[in-house]
């Protein structure tokens, strides 16, 4: 679909009419005759209320947190005082006593780790060279891509030495990234599969749809406690199965990767309905004409899905993955309730680390960790928006 990748030079194009093309097209403002005699008013009235609400409640906390991240908060008689300490909090996190907590302990990469690192770096280099060659990029964009690429290489190295390294262990930063990406990927695949399944002509679809929505309806703290109950080795329902299998000393939550797995499983269980409901609405709202025609022509279901349904779903998918990815970075309830971030610090996410500092009233450190997360998520978001959103949405 070539229209999807066009740059949006809006003034030079007229409206492009196309029938059931789900990737929408461009439209030039054609003020209607009776937009309250002021087309501009209509435009502003649509958008500004939303912007103002967000603006007021967003700017202040953002700046206030930045101030806190650069200070030390202490209690004094009658209140608390905020001492500006510059980058001390950040220095402690990345260079000082919390370094291994946040960045992890580097071990030696295993063979697989080397493969991942070298392969990934090679791919990045190739992509970067292609971008330079294409000459379609401004200098700022080039610098941005270079910096982004460098960070990705560092990330790959971190993965190779901590997650895939022997003797290493990932810090909260890496653990958060693992949670976010694996959770989002798994929930998307499951949600898509379920949405497709429940739009087929099968019996009992209403029942299944309601049931599949249920996990999202449970308050996250509730989901966390529920899984805590399920994984409890004394009172949980699964323990007798382990015992019967001869693994009576088995403990999922007592092992670092076991605990992380428990967090991911619970997270996927809880958030699949999010993907499910969005994709279901998109599938239900689509025009079946093309698919009907293809069925009549004898195309297989797989062909139809890959060539007709999926492309129509790509814009929504891209958006919902972005939304979920951003949310997933903030995971806190599950690791907090399941293991309090343990064993050790194995399941701690960045938000949980921030929360633990905050509980001890170390507001400066807490805000610093939160800002680190903000920076990470912003970079991921910008990267994602640049490479994926722009390509899947013709406008905006």
């Amino acid at each position, binding site marked *: 679909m070539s229209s999807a990748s066009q740059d949006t030079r809006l003034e030079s194009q007229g409206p492009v009419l196309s029938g059931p093309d789900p990737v929408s097209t461009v439209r030039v403002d054609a003020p209607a005759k009776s937009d309250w005699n002021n087309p501009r008013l209509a435009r502003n009235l649509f958008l500004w209320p939303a912007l103002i609400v967000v603006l007021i409640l967003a700017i202040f906390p953002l700046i206030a947190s930045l101030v806190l991240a650069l200070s*030390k908060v*202490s*209690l*004094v*008689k*009658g*209140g*608390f005082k905020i001492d500006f300490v510059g980058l001390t909090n950040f220095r*402690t996190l990345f260079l000082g*006593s919390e370094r291994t*907590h946040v960045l992890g*302990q580097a071990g030696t990469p295993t063979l697989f780790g080397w493969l991942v690192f070298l392969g990934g770096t090679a791919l990045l280099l190739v992509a970067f060279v292609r971008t330079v060659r294409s000459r379609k990029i401004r200098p700022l964009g080039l610098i941005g891509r270079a910096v982004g690429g460098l960070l990705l290489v560092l990330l790959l190295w971190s993965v190779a030495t901590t997650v895939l390294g022997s003797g290493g*262990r990932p810090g909260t930063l890496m653990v958060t990234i693992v949670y976010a990406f694996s959770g989002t990927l798994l929930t998307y695949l499951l949600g898509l599969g379920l949405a497709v399944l429940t739009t087929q002509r099968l019996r009992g679809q209403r029942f299944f749809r309601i049931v599949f929505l249920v996990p999202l309806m449970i308050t996250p703290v509730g989901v966390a406690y529920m899984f805590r109950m399920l994984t*409890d*080795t*004394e*009172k949980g329902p699964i323990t007798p199965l382990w*015992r019967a299998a001869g693994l*009576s*000393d*088995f*403990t999922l*939550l*007592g092992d*670092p990767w076991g605990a992380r797995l428990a967090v991911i499983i619970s997270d996927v269980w809880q958030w699949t309905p999010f993907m499910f409901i969005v994709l279901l609405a998109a599938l239900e709202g689509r025009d079946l004409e093309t698919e009907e025609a293809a069925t009549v022509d004898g195309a297989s279901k797989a062909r139809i899905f890959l060539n007709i349904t999926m492309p129509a779903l790509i814009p929504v998918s891209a958006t919902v993955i972005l939304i979920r990815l951003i949310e997933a970075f903030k995971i806190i309830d599950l690791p907090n309730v399941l*293991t*309090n*971030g*343990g*064993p*050790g*610090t*194995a399941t701690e996410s960045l938000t949980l680390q921030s929360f*633990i*500092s*905050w*509980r*001890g*009233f*170390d507001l400066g450190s807490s805000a610093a960790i939160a800002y680190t997360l903000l920076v990470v998520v912003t970079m991921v978001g910008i990267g994602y928006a640049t490479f994926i959103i722009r390509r899947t949405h013709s406008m905006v």
Partner: protein
Amino acid sequence: MAIGRRRWLGVLPALALVVGATGVAAQSPSTGEYDGVTVNVVTFSGPPIAEPLERYAVEFEAATGATINITKYPFSDLYSKALADVATGTNSFQLMTLAAPWVADFASAGYAADLTDKIANDPEIAWDDIMPFFRDIVAQYAGKVVGVPIDGDFTMTYYRTDILGADGVAPPKTWDEYLQIAEKYDGKDLNGDGVPDYGSCISKARSGVGTWLFNGVLSSFVQTMGTGQGTFFGDDMTPLINNEAMGAALDFWKTSMEFGPPDENNLDQQGGRDMFTSGRCALAIDWGDTGVLAIDPATSKVIDKVGAVQMPGSTNVLDRATGKLVPCDATICPNAIDGVNHAPFAAFGGWSAVVNAAADEKTQAAAYDFAAYVSNPTRSNIDVTHGVTGMNPYRLSQFGDNMANWVAAGFSEAAASSYLGAMKDSLDNPNMAVDLRILQSNNYTNVAEDQAISQFLAGELTKEEAMQQLFDKWQELTDSIGREVQAAAYAASLGVQR
């Protein structure tokens, strides 16, 4: 309107009756000295502490006309919520139940009202009946009374009298003996259900109570000269946690996991208690709650099978000059019992009802009166015998003549004697160790120490790394808060009376 005179005369007696009735009603107990006063109380979600508070609120309201609203927060959020409330000047709460270690933060910043005069003028609270140790640790700061004690806390070791008794094994006196006993019974079926059980169950979950229980082990290696010596810091607030004593305590902590449930490092407090009361453990370390929970027919399978002793000790203690462990002798262990140095640890200290200094006079008076009502011996002495209230003994009268109440609660005399005996032994021990009560104690113990221990248990850090990390973290904290300030607070917390 022209009502005939007769009619008026008829109305008058009726009017008089009504006025009289109202007058009588006005003098009934429901109108008291605190009519129209509202006291908002904040505590953590119970039933411990919250249940008795709610119960007494109803009585207090009826007796004095005050309105008592009790708001509950999850325990882990109580500290931040209460502190944010006073520090930002919101002051929605007039009475706060705070843990003894937190009192320093609230009192030093001036949020806790000075109750010294009120206490002096209140004979009903029976101030002298409260054990001096708890008066100081839970209620006082810098010489002033800043809270009303409603609970006292320290830890003990519990054991199965039936299991150990059958083999003639005496309860452990040292940590080595503890491990030996745990090893002996690990894997055996201790409650007759055919499933192998464990030698020792200790709640070591992260962000749980593990740090308090651990410090009870540490203290016996570190403190020998009496309460005034302290467990955590040496001269100039140098942390005493990077030495062989800490190492020995950490070794014990890790080794005991071999004789415990497989996920002991994720075992929370209730889980640990449940395991012991359903008979799955030979030994346990806990506050007084396990004792009262063990006699509860609704939850316990080990009624009358539980004994308690004061915390085991060590025959090797820390030489503070060298940082090494040296054998006990008369000089370095003057308080040793049979050559073993015990340092029962007043873990957590207790709960204190603190009055918000920003409230007006009348409300402060009402808040204090309510707290005193709860702490009053007539009520408190019964509360401490019931596990559900979460209140553990802190008054002399609760140890002495309270046997009738203990028996009424379900203790056999033998069990009560053992339980109270262990407590009394601990409280009478001149080497009793005080929990950390300096500014931001929470950060030192529940955040930094908890993390280091947890990482050590999980194998993320070696013993030496954990100790060094903790040492550095504590130095960092002390530096940022101010060494002199902390030294003064620390000295004040150690200057407790016996």
